[in-house]
């Protein structure tokens, strides 16, 4: 009798229908907690990158703060008369709030689509795509709505470095690196195969 024929002999040898070993769990608190951490970390890295870029390109380290504040108070925040201390304080608060919000959104999207346990290169890709989406939606859709006076106020180099490069090479990868490093909600590594000497496949046929 072949192995597969012996399968018919013992119903207990079968897994319950539609059941498998969980490799991910969805825990709202865990998603929010790690989304907050990931967002804060990536937001800090993005803020630092933007300050460096702004200083190097325009000699003005406070411009990123001014832009963050402009979301709330409008183009007045970009005026030279606007107090630096107020810009730094309010800008930090807004930036931190948005960092946490988008961090939680990123983790939630990963958890919703069962990608918390995805391969590392995929999570890196998700990070970059998410970062560019955040940039596009924030700067091309939301900003013109809430602060139309900011249209055309940024030169190309600043937008390139403070926008696309900072988001795609710093913010997104740091978000992804946090998930890859911590692996929140991940219970098992599904992708291990025979080649790794851990997993025999396909199961149920050995």
């Amino acid at each position, binding site marked *: 009798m072949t192995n*597969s024929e012996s399968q*018919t002999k013992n119903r207990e040898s079968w897994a319950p229908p539609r059941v498998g070993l969980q490799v991910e769990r969805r825990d709202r608190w865990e998603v929010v907690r790690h989304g907050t951490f990931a967002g804060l970390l990536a937001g800090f890295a993005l803020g630092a990158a933007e300050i460096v870029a702004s200083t190097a390109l325009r000699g003005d380290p406070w411009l990123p703060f001014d832009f963050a504040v402009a979301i709330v108070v409008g183009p007045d925040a970009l005026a030279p008369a606007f107090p630096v201390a107020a810009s730094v304080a309010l800008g930090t608060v807004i930036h931190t709030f948005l960092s946490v919000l988008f961090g939680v959104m990123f983790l939630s999207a990963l958890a919703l689509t*069962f990608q918390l346990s995805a391969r590392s290169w995929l999570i890196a890709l998700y990070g970059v795509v998410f970062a560019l989406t955040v940039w596009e939606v924030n700067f091309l859709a939301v900003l013109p709505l809430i602060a139309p006076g900011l249209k055309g106020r940024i030169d190309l180099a600043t937008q390139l470095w403070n926008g696309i490069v900072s988001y795609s090479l710093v913010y997104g990868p740091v978000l992804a690196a946090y998930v890859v490093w911590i692996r929140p909600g991940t219970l098992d590594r599904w992708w291990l195969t025979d080649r790794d000497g851990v*997993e025999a496949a*396909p199961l*149920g046929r050995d």
Partner: protein
Amino acid sequence: MDLGFPLGIRLTHAFNLVFLTLLIRSGIEILGGHPMLYFNDHCRPGSEWIRFTSKRMFRNLRWTAEDEKQSYTPWLALPGRDNLGLGRFWHFVAVIGWLLTGLIYLFVLSTSEQWQRIVPTSWTVFNNAWQAAVAYLRLDVPLPGNPYNGLQQLTYFALVFVLTPLQIATGLAMSPALAGRFQWFPRLFGGRQAARSLHFIGLIAFVAFTVHHVALVIAHGLLDGLAAIVLGEQAPTAAEQAVAVAIALIFLIALIALHVWATRRSLLQPRAMQNALQRIVDPVQALLLQPLTSQQSYRPEDITQDPRPNGRPPGNQAFIDLVERGFAGWKFEVGGLVDRPLSLSLEELRRLQSQHQITQHKCIQGWSYTAAWQGVPLGVLLEHCEPTRDARYILFRTFDEKWEEPGHGEYYSVIDLDLARASQTLIAYDMNGQPLPTAFGAPLRLRLENQLGYKMVKWIRSMELIADYHDIGAGCGGWRADLLHYSRIAPI
């Protein structure tokens, strides 16, 4: 140039949104049938490049491909909760609507000056696109083009003339009837699984386009944009803007209501929804795909090592006893509307004319494998049993009592008599040069190479020629059609 948005363009834009959202949600449901994507046709566990499931399978317990399904929430999938059959019906109904919408759009485009919106006619489009990109980067709105700027024109052109045909082609490449008849077709995309992956990536591209499109409409001016696409007004007044917003909101509410209705009715009254959707889908697939006969001829080196089994083998004592005896003394019964009923042992079946073929098995869930099959052409059996003139279908009964899903009767399936006479339709008794393993359908299984796997009944006990199938089971033409709301025919 002031092309405006004529009624045809505005209506097709609206219907495009309706059908695209249905396609995306039902596509997610279909993905849940086998929530893994591959770039190889063997689909060995661990070789997927992406997966959308929270689980992996056991090492110390036996499982089949059905256990790998992932149930998705109805908030996301249409209808959700592991309803592959209805998800497929919704997907195909939406495809038909989407294609008709696309044809009308192309007609309007080509019979008016509207084509100038999206078809570049000069190489300057690339320079213009760069200028537009720079303007967007500066958080500015680029100058209008003719009427679109270069970036818009290139994007819409790629969407209509590259991405959309690619989605249609990769979807068709997953049809077992089309891929069986034209084996080269899925190879254009790197194989069936690569086509499936590209189909999914195309879906992501459509979603990404939609996000990008909405963001830029807002950047250009939401109210003006809405007035243009809803009312066709290029320079709207404030009142016209308000009317456009109201119509757009009503449309969005109606769209959401449609999705809620489709989801709830599918979950609460699945049979009614199956019957309704089937009336639209089945005639189309019966006309276009079902007649295609398989001409597959894979090489021995294409055969998949250790493929996935699907469905738990029967667990009843009678079957177990037969397995242990090597089916000695068992006879395959052929009866019903025939002039010469047959009762054949496996040895007698093996002495009939046999046929060998290497073909690709394509499961409705999405996975595939390639194997060599040997058996009796069903047409040969029909010649021996001589069906009467009333016979229109063949009913296959099995040993499979579906012990894992008790209370729904034995597994059976009904196929058309025409399909039975196709050149690669076999009653197979060997797989890859060995007697059919139990997990793959011993003692006999059907091979219908232009159909999805669920029509290829395993563990066959008997076959019966019949005039009608509506009084068998729940009357839908098969155990899976009865219980899981699959279609009776499965050429895609």
